[in-house]
């Protein structure tokens, strides 16, 4: 790289330490400056479009086709219009599962948000030693990988040797000896909700607590001098700081809990008798287990639509502000 290059206006660019670097930057400025952002973005765009954008378009396309293993092997493309959707809508099971999924999501989100809010508020009033202990245990719960914690919960709730049944018997509730927590769908989903709430509370708690820390101390002191009751302090001082964070974390919780698969599947594979099957499990059963890709894609599309409806208000807010910032 010792080529002589067009001179650079002296004021614009002081002498570079080495000719090579100067040459390269000059070349870039002359030819690549305008293209550079696009070149830098290219790998990311490529990956996002190929592995998120294309599948998202595909899922709609496949939902309008009759696609099973046979058709896949023969490479047939059979368009069936909305037949897959009609089939799903005609299945009473689908409506039960949808309602169940909504109730399950609402339970998890409600549980996570109320526990997290209470713990965050409590944290502000704790002696610092207790607060540190609590924070460490929250981080531990948060950090445990999903399948690890699912396995532990199965063991805690084990019918015969689980510590929960043993404890209940010890406390005098003899009828819990050998009680099966996974005997009905409602009970199974209740255990799964507990697991999810236990694991999701830390993130939300830390987020809300961080929000509380941004409130200037004087505001609380002023409220104290004015003789405000705790509920009034909460409404006037804490709530304004927490509100945007509560909106955000509620939105994220809906997003995450609505599509939970790993825990539901790992606990009882949607059983007993499909009573704890949620939409993502149905999607897996139709798609991979039955190889009915068309029907499964219709379920997937409906799931996304439902999720968009559930979060529409917040998505609107989000897109507006982010675009404004950009």
């Amino acid at each position, binding site marked *: 790289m010792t080529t002589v290059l067009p001179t650079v206006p002296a004021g614009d660019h002081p002498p570079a330490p080495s000719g090579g*670097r*100067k040459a390269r*930057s000059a070349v*870039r400025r002359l030819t690549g400056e305008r293209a*550079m952002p696009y070149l*830098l*973005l290219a790998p*990311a*765009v490529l*990956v*996002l479009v190929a*592995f*998120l954008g294309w*599948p*998202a378009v*595909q*899922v709609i396309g*496949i939902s309008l086709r009759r696609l099973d293993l046979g058709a*896949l092997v023969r490479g047939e493309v059979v368009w069936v219009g909305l037949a897959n959707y009609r089939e799903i809508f005609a299945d009473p099971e689908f409506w039960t599962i949808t309602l169940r999924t909504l109730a399950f999501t609402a339970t998890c989100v409600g549980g996570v948000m109320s526990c997290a809010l209470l713990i965050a508020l409590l*944290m502000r009033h*704790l*002696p610092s030693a*207790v607060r540190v*202990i*609590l924070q*460490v*245990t*929250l*981080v*531990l*719960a948060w*950090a445990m*990988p*999903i*399948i*690890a*914690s699912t*396995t*532990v919960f199965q*063991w805690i709730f084990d019918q015969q*040797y689980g510590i929960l049944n043993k404890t209940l018997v010890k406390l005098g509730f003899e009828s819990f000896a050998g009680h099966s927590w996974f005997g009905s769908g409602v009970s199974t989903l209740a255990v799964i909700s507990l697991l999810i709430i*236990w694991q999701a509370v830390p*993130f939300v708690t*830390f987020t809300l607590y*961080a929000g509380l820390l941004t409130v200037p101390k004087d505001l609380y002191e002023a409220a104290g001098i004015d003789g405000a009751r705790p509920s009034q302090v909460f409404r006037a001082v804490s709530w304004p700081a927490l509100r*945007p964070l509560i909106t*955000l974390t509620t939105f994220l919780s809906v997003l995450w809990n609505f*599509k939970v*698969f*790993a825990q539901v599947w*790992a606990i009882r594979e949607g059983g007993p008798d499909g009573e704890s099957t949620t939409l993502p499990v149905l*999607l*897996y059963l139709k798609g991979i287990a039955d190889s009915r890709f068309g029907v499964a*894609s219709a379920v*997937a599309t409906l*799931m996304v639509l439902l999720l968009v409806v559930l979060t529409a208000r917040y998505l609107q*807010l989000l897109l507006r*502000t982010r*675009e404004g910032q*950009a």
Partner: protein
Amino acid sequence: MRTGPRRILLGTIGLLVAAVFAFPTYWMITSALKPPIEVLSARYDLIPLSVSLDNFATAIAKPGFATYLTNSLIVTLGAVACSLVAGLLAAVPLARLRFRGRKGFVLLVLVAQLAPLEALFIPMYLLMKDLGLLNTLPSLLLVYFATTLPFTIWTLRGFVNGIPVELEEAAMVDGCGRWGAFRRVTLPLLGPGLVATSVFGFITAWNEFLYAFVFMRDSSKYTLPVWLESFQTAFGTDWSGAMAGAVLYSVPALVFFLLVQRKLVSGGTAGAVKG
């Protein structure tokens, strides 16, 4: 705060909540340390009577374990490395340059961040089948790369924004080229941001179950979460073995988490909507 009894009451409640959150972790570790016979006894055993590391030795010595660990490490670290490189390349122009299509790209990243991946596994499965990658580690690596990329770009963009552009300009005045200024000034300052972001990606990929479960048909291709889930059926009710496996699988995530816990919160909610 002011009065003694109130302080003690709140402190007690705090400790109780801490106990509830610590219990599953405690139970996992103590069950892993108990001999299998003790785990499956009717005795009430909240505190372990004897402690042994046999379950860990057994789990590690199981023929599959090393393979599953290697599989998990390959797909996780591979995906994190790829998404750090592609993410940094994208984050810098996003934070530093004005160009046409910038808003569009920001929107793409944002939407990708919210994409319900659980709903996309059918087309992904068919795509990997077409590419001949089904049942291979690269298929998972690609999916995790794509999954972790949006938030990698988003958080790194935030970190780059946090470094004053004047520092780079000063370096350029002192004779560095644009690349030199970036490499000598910005990149070192980005260090903590790169670490925090990569840990975030690591946890996501390390945790992922659905795609690993759907794509990997051969048990020799399993990753740790799939292996752990199959424990129960494969080994009957070997709870002490399963708990030892769970501990081994949790350790990397736990260590990384403790390292960057504070940054995770700020990164996760960066750009929260006000209003």
